[in-house]
Structure formats: structure tokens, C-alpha cells
């Protein structure tokens, strides 16, 4: 396009568009036609009965009404000029009619928002206010918008410049376009996708409005009656003929349709078995075929013209056949009827029900095999891959007679189109409007969290469940995020409410309220979580993977528990796996067992609750096979369970702990070294000593060394334990305080160099709780009082226990 685009306000088409806007032709057409008729008849009647010649003048006026009626009908469509080059030749009439003589970009924005395409873009992408607020008021800027609109029109191959295309052109010519759009979470690609979506929407509506049932009244006269099939089946063709079908011709589905038509029309085996995961579009493909056969084009073989597809209903068949053998006979009769009618294609959805124990403990394979072998009846079946493999193994002869057609999951572009098809009905049913951002989110989040179905089914399923979270009738990205958060128990939105932000910003303090020191470990874990909730992490990995090394009883497990309690919603969000129970080569099976076999396996727990802290305790004791299995989980956040189903660890924090080299850490700390000084050297020593393989250690984001607690820290641990005891006594309305001497004594008694602070809780609880219990029973502690524990009491109690 080297020429400058021209907008001619006075062109014939521009004038027609303005007239169209003023006389609202869609409403007035029939009125004008009728008034013309009445005037004509009235005029002639006046001449005839009243013998008044002026009746002719009245009758002649009818011509004016008819002229305007015909012109109004033409204006209703007002198609673009195919060979036009000026803007007014190509612009849609609903925008063209609303433009002033010298429009500014702001005038364009207002005209766009009054037109269908502009309304669509405003609702679906939320750019309505953006358009009017940011559009220039300078008439000189309009030329650039026309240029952009023409370029987009040719680039996208659209028949006219509609309001959506013009909106995109207007946006693209705004200063700081990309930065401004980013504020509403949109990019240039999204705007173009919106334009394509509108074009797709218009095509679907036009397709739906055109004649669906073809062939006329005599279409089925050469074919037989099918009373039995009418009773036990559902005629897809008839349903689509009356109600229509809103689906696109997706490229991959076109290939499937061609393969189906080829299988059904050629050769002796006139059947097709669609094999694909749930949600991959098997049933939709059959519906699309039924629609195609109703109005057969040149690509439909003659053998398939006007064929009707009837889906058999297994539940109704079972209900009818009560006696043994009746079911086989009934299916036989149905097949015979279909074959005799000569225009039927039988469709067995969930076909495994006909071959396995599903159909009232009868395998109909023996009934169907001779029919398939004879090839007299066209049949389509649909089943998932596992069932197909099972049936093929159980009955190889049967599978030889079947033409298998594989349905791969749809890619992103096709899934987006399929969602756009489906949501027309969803919007009607739920009385909502889906925004573009919701579709994007549905694709992204369903890819990640819904593994039980294939695309596009899983994205459509999520869209449907998001309707319940609509805000003021709009299903937004947030609605979709809420839906997945509710159903999957994960957090996918970035932290937006004030409470959560405060928790994240003060995470270290909150964790330190439960555990003492180990500041570096607390910090790295807190940082990882903040990165995740701010949306700045790699979403293809777990939130964070950490290896905690250090002696027993220094807070490694406590940190994991604290994190689960403070942020993940409770200690029940801690999935703990003691790897000292996985020391055999076959223990991998237990680790990745299916929930039906072991609901406490690692994969089963995470599949149930993906937003968790995973604690892999004593990892150095696990068998190498177990560690190898865990590599992918650490690296990509994925683990496959025993049934090869993918389990997602990308919303979990993974913490592995090990006591390996604990003695070495203790000795170095005692010799006065700081952790930071020997951290790297220590890790190297563990690798050299073959405790861990380097490729395993490299999988962790951070390796953190925990040091033994010193005297002061142990006193703080005692304080934390006492806080816990006081909390427990709140119901009795008494409290307990322990002086410093006593606390030091408790530290001395409870600390074990080998077990760290672990025995401390037991000792403190035993001593303090026993003293409190004795005083309360002796009525020495009334409600509201404070029990002060002295060093003598502690000594006495410790001696009693030692004795």
C-alpha cells in the first residue's frame, strides 16, 4: 500500500451508510412494504367504488413506499465494494454511518464503540474506556489510523474494515501503545486475537443462520424406516438439522473428518474408531461430520450423501433387555435395521461399554464382529487410548476389522477457537460474557492443573466452572483463577489482598515466632515464596527446592512445619515423607502409588493438595532409584505416578533434609568457624564422600547448612515451649512462669549433643506440666493466678524422674 488512504465523506456509500443509520432499515422494511400495499389497494378502491379519479394519485404513491422499502433492505446489508481502495469503500456501514466529515481519532473511537465490532472489543477485552480516553483529538492523526486499518485489513484477510479492526488500528497508533495496554494486562497479539475472534464470531453466526438441512422433502424417501433406532438411539443429524451446530472447521478436525469419510466410504471395513483422551474432541468430531453430511459438498463421497448419524444409548438398551440374551438380540436387530435402511451410520460413544463388562456383563464383541466383517453397516466408535489397547489385546481379531483414527490433543490456537465456539452456548446458559483474558487464563491454567482431560475439553471445562465466579456478569481472568483455586486448592493469582501481602512481607518474623534462629534458611525460603506470589518466578519448576543439612534437633523439620502453618494454611499442608522407609530398589512404587492403592503416597497427596510444603526427611538414606525418581520433580516440578499420570509439584515448596556430615558441622562451629566460611567446602566433601551425587545436589535452588543451637538459643527454645504450655492452660485461666535459673536447668537436662533440642520439649513439658498439675490439684493455683516455678521445684521433679 503505497498510496495514501482516502476517506470521502461525500461518497455514495458514505451517504448510504448515514441514511441507513437514520432510517433503521431492519425495522422499517416490512412496514413500508405493507403501507405501500394498503395505499395501492385503497387508491384503486376509491376509483372503483367511489368513482373518484384522485384515487389514482393515492395509488401511485404506493410506488414511493416500495422504492424506499427495497432501498432500505439493500441498506441493511450495504456490503463493502470488492474492488474499492478508499476507506469508505471498505469500512463497515455501522461505523461509516457514524463518522463526521473530518473525523478525529476520538470521533473514530466513539463511532467504533457504537458499532457491533467495537462493542465486542470493549466487552471482551475491556478496552472501551481506554479507546475514548487515549484517542487523539487532532484530525491530522486520523490519516495514520486509516493507513493502519487498511494494512490490518489486508494482513488479516478480512472482507471489510469492521469496527474491531478499526479499534485495533486506533490502538496501535496511540503513543505508548504497548505500555498503556500492559496496564490492562494486554499486548499487541491479544488485540489482534480479539479482531480475529470477532471475525470468527461473525462467521459462526452467519453459518448458523444459513440453511442447515438440505435435500428437500424427498431426501429420505429412498431409505427405510427405523422405528427401533428411533427408540433406542439419538439422531444427531436430525438434531443438528433443526437446532444447528456452532463449531469451527479446525484444521486438525478437518483431517480427522477426511479420514473418517475415507474409512466409512471406501473398502470392506466401513467403520471408524476415534481413539483419543477424554476432552480431545471425539464426540464433537462426529457432530461436525453429521453437519457436513446434511449439506454435502464436493469433498463428501457420494456414498455418504444425506447419511444420518444415530448414537446408540447403552443405558436405554440395558434397561430394555432384562432377560439373558435379550441384549445381544436387541443389538442385532438394531444393526439389521440400520443396515436395511441404507442411510444410517451408527455411532457408539464410549464404545468400550459395548465390548467390556459394562453392558450388563455382556461382551457384544461377538455380536458386532460379524457385522463389522460383512461391512454392510457404517459404524463410528469413540473410546480412549487405554480402552482401545485393552480391547485390542483382549480381542485382536476384532481390532483387525476396525479402522483406528487417533485424535491428538488440540494446540493453543485450536483450543482458543474451540473455546470461542463453546462459549456462545455457555454465555446463553449462564447469562454471562467471557472476556478474552478469561480464555487465555483458562488455557494456561487448565494446561497446568487439569490433567484428567485433553485439550480443548479441559479448557472448556474450566471456562464452564468459571461462570459461577463471574463479576457483574463478566467472566474475567480473575474468575478463572478463582475457579481453579477453589477446585484445585492452589494459589494462582498474585498476592492481591492486604492481609496476604502483610504475611508475605513479614514472613521471617512470623516463622521466627515458632522457631529460633537459622536466619539464612528462613530467609531463602521466605524469598522463594515472595517471588512466587509476586508472579516473578519460573512457573515450570516448584516454588522452591531446598536441601537443609545439619544435626538433628536444630529446626530443619520445624522450619517446614512453620512454613506450612504460617503461609500454606496449616500443618496439614505439610506432606512429609520419611525416606528412611524407602531404602529398597522397589520402594519407588510405593512413592508414586496411585491414590486408589495408597492415598498416603507422595503423588497421591500432591495430586489431592498441590499447594503444599513437601518435606523429604533423611534423604541420604533413600535408595538411588528413589533419588533418581525425584530428580524430575526437583527439576521440572513433575512426577509421573505408577499409571504414568503427570502429577504437578509446581505449586509446592520442596524441602529435603539430611543429617549427613552433622558431626563435621558441629566440630567446625565449635572451633569458631562461621557457616558461611565452610558451606561450599562442606558440600564438596559430601560429594567426594559419595553421600550425594553432584547432579542430585545441583537440582536444589539452595543448599542451607543448619548449625547447632547455642546456650542462648536453647533458652529461647524453652521460652517457645513455655508459650505453648501457657496457651494450653488458657482454658484453666492460669498461667505459668519459670525463672532464669530454672530455665537454664531445663536446658542442661533437655539438651543432647546427638539429638539437639529435640528432647527438650519432652523434658520441659514433663517437668512444668507435672508441677502445674500438682498445684492445681492441691488447690494452690486458683483461676486467674500465675504459677511461679522455682529452681528447687524443677530439681525435685527432675530427680523424681531420674529415680
Amino acid at each position: 500500500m503505497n498510496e495514501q488512504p482516502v476517506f470521502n465523506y461525500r461518497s455514495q456509500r458514505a451517504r448510504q451508510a448515514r441514511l441507513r443509520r437514520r432510517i433503521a432499515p431492519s425495522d422499517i422494511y416490512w412496514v413500508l412494504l405493507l403501507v405501500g400495499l394498503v395505499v395501492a389497494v385503497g387508491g384503486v378502491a376509491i376509483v372503483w367504488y367511489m368513482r373518484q379519479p384522485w384515487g389514482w394519485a393515492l395509488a401511485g404513491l404506493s410506488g414511493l413506499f416500495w422504492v424506499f422499502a427495497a432501498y432500505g433492505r439493500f441498506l441493511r446489508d450495504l456490503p463493502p465494494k470488492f474492488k474499492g481502495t478508499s476507506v469508505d469503500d471498505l469500512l463497515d456501514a455501522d461505523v461509516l454511518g457514524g463518522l463526521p466529515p473530518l473525523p478525529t481519532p476520538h470521533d473514530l473511537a466513539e463511532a467504533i464503540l457504537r458499532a457491533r465490532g467495537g462493542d465486542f472489543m470493549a466487552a471482551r477485552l475491556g478496552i472501551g474506556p481506554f479507546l475514548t480516553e487515549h484517542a487523539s483529538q487532532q484530525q491530522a492523526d486520523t490519516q495514520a489510523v486509516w493507513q493502519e486499518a487498511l494494512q490490518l485489513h489486508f494482513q488479516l484477510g478480512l472482507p471489510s474494515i469492521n469496527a474491531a479492526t478499526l479499534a485495533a488500528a486506533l490502538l496501535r497508533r496511540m503513543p505508548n501503545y504497548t505500555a498503556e495496554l500492559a496496564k490492562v494486562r494486554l499486548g499487541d497479539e491479544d488485540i489482534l486475537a480479539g479482531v480475529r475472534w470477532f471475525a470468527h464470531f461473525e462467521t459462526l453466526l452467519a453459518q448458523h443462520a444459513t440453511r442447515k438441512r438440505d435435500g428437500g422433502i424427498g431426501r429420505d424417501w429412498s431409505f427405510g424406516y427405523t422405528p427401533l433406532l428411533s427408540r433406542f438411539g439419538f439422531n444427531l443429524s436430525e438434531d443438528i438439522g433443526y437446532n444447528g451446530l456452532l463449531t469451527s472447521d479446525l484444521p486438525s478436525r478437518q483431517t480427522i473428518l477426511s479420514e473418517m469419510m475415507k474409512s466409512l466410504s471406501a473398502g470392506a471395513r466401513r467403520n471408524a474408531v476415534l481413539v483419543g483422551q477424554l476432552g480431545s474432541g471425539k464426540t464433537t468430531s462426529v457432530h461436525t461430520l453429521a453437519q457436513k453430511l446434511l449439506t454435502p459438498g464436493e469433498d463428501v463421497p457420494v456414498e455418504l450423501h444425506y447419511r444420518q448419524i444415530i448414537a446408540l444409548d447403552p443405558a436405554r438398551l440395558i434397561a430394555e433387555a432384562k432377560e439373558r440374551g435379550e441384549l445381544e438380540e436387541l443389538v442385532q436387530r438394531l444393526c439389521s435395521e440400520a443396515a436395511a435402511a441404507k442411510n444410517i451410520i451408527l455411532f457408539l460413544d464410549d464404545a468400550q461399554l459395548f465390548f467390556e463388562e459394562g453392558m450388563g456383563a455382556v461382551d457384544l464383541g461377538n455380536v458386532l464382529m460379524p457385522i463389522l466383517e460383512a461391512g454392510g453397516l457404517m459404524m463410528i466408535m469413540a473410546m480412549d487410548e487405554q480402552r482401545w489397547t485393552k480391547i485390542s489385546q483382549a480381542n485382536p481379531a476384532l481390532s483387525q476389522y476396525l479402522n483406528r483414527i487417533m485424535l491428538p490433543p488440540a494446540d493453543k490456537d485450536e483450543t482458543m477457537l474451540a473455546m470461542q465456539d463453546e462459549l456462545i452456548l455457555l454465555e446463553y446458559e449462564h447469562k454471562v460474557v467471557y472476556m478474552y483474558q478469561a480464555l487465555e487464563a483458562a488455557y494456561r491454567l487448565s494446561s497446568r492443573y487439569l490433567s484428567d482431560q485433553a485439550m480443548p475439553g479441559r479448557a472448556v471445562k474450566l471456562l464452564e466452572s468459571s461462570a459461577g465466579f463471574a463479576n457483574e456478569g463478566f467472566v474475567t481472568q480473575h474468575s478463572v483463577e478463582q475457579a481453579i483455586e477453589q477446585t484445585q486448592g492452589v494459589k494462582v493469582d498474585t498476592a492481591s489482598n492486604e492481609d496476604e501481602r502483610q504475611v508475605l512481607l513479614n514472613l521471617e518474623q512470623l516463622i521466627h515466632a515458632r522457631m529460633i534462629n537459622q536466619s539464612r534458611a528462613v530467609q531463602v525460603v521466605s524469598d522463594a515464596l515472595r517471588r512466587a506470589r509476586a508472579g516473578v518466578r519460573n512457573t515450570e519448576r516448584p516454588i522452591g527446592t531446598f536441601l537443609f543439612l545439619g544435626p538433628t534437633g536444630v529446626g530443619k523439620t520445624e522450619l517446614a512445619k512453620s512454613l506450612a502453618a504460617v503461609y500454606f494454611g496449616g500443618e496439614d499442608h505439610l506432606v512429609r515423607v520419611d525416606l528412611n522407609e524407602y531404602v529398597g530398589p522397589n520402594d519407588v512404587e510405593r512413592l508414586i502409588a496411585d491414590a486408589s492403592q495408597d492415598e498416603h503416597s507422595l503423588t497421591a497427596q500432591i495430586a489431592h493438595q498441590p499447594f503444599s510444603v513437601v518435606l523429604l526427611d533423611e534423604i541420604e538414606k533413600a535408595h538411588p532409584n528413589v533419588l533418581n525418581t525425584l530428580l524430575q520433580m526437583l527439576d521440572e516440578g513433575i512426577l509421573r505416578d505408577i499409571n504414568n499420570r503427570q502429577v504437578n509439584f509446581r505449586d509446592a515448596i520442596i524441602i529435603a533434609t539430611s543429617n549427613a556430615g552433622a558431626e563435621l558441622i558441629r566440630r567446625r562451629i565449635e572451633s569458631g568457624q562461621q557457616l558461611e566460611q565452610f558451606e561450599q567446602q562442606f558440600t564438596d566433601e559430601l560429594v567426594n564422600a559419595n553421600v550425594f551425587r553432584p547432579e542430585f545436589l545441583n537440582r536444589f535452588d539452595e543448599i542451607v547448612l543448619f548449625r547447632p543451637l547455642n546456650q542462648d538459643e536453647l533458652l529461647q527454645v524453652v521460652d517457645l515451649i513455655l508459650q505453648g504450655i501457657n496457651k494450653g492452660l488458657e482454658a484453666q485461666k492460669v498461667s505459668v512462669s519459670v525463672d532464669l535459673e530454672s530455665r537454664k536447668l531445663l536446658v542442661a537436662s533437655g539438651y543432647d549433643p546427638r539429638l539437639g533440642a529435640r528432647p527438650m520439649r519432652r523434658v520441659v513439658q514433663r517437668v512444668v506440666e507435672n508441677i502445674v498439675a500438682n498445684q492445681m490439684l492441691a488447690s494452690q493455683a486458683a483461676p486467674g493466678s500465675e504459677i511461679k516455678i522455682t529452681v528447687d521445684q524443677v530439681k525435685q521433679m527432675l530427680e523424681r524422674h531420674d529415680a
Partner: protein
Amino acid sequence: MLTLARWWYTTGWARLFGHIGQRASNVLAAFSVGLLARTLFDPFRQIAAGRSSGSLNDQTRAFADRTFSRFIGAFVRFMVIVIGLLAWLIVVLIGLVQAVLWPVVPLLPIVGLVLAMTGWVIG
């Protein structure tokens, strides 16, 4: 008005011919004229049309049944084809009248005015 007049005698008239053609085509499709002509001697709704592999007597009876079914089919189809063609003819004739009268419609006010001025009345 000039725009309107130009449209009436160019685009408007051409569109009318397009509509007449479409209507005629729809009538043929609705009566399945082409399809019925192609399947004129097929059995009607496959009544007793199944093939028999039984005895000679059975086969003879099946053949006779099929022939009867074909006869019914041919009769019904022929009648529908005739009705369809008649309907098509009517639609085409109406369309032609419309096409011939089309240029006169904008002139009707003038024609009416002239007739009124002449004082002519019917009968």
C-alpha cells in the same frame, strides 16, 4: 434522489434478478427435484426391499415386493417432481413480472397523477 434513482436502475435491478434466481433454486431444492429424478425407480422407503437368500419361492416373492415398492416409489416421486416443477414455474413467472414492473415502480406517482388529472375511472 439521483443516488436512489441510479441505484434502482442498476444495482437494485440486478439484485432483483439475483433474488428471483435464488427463489427458483430454493423451490427446486425444497421439492428435491434433482434427487427424486436420480432415484426415480428406487424402492420407496425400502418397504419389503430386503434381499432374500432363501428358496426360489422366497426370492421370487422378494423380487415381486421390491418391484411393487419401486412402482410406488416411482409414482410418488413423479408426482412430487411435477408439483415441484409447477411451483418452480409459478415462482419464475412471478419473478419475471416483478422484473418487468421494477422500472415502472418509481414512476407510479407520476402515472397516478396523470390518470387522476385525466379524470378516468374504472367501469
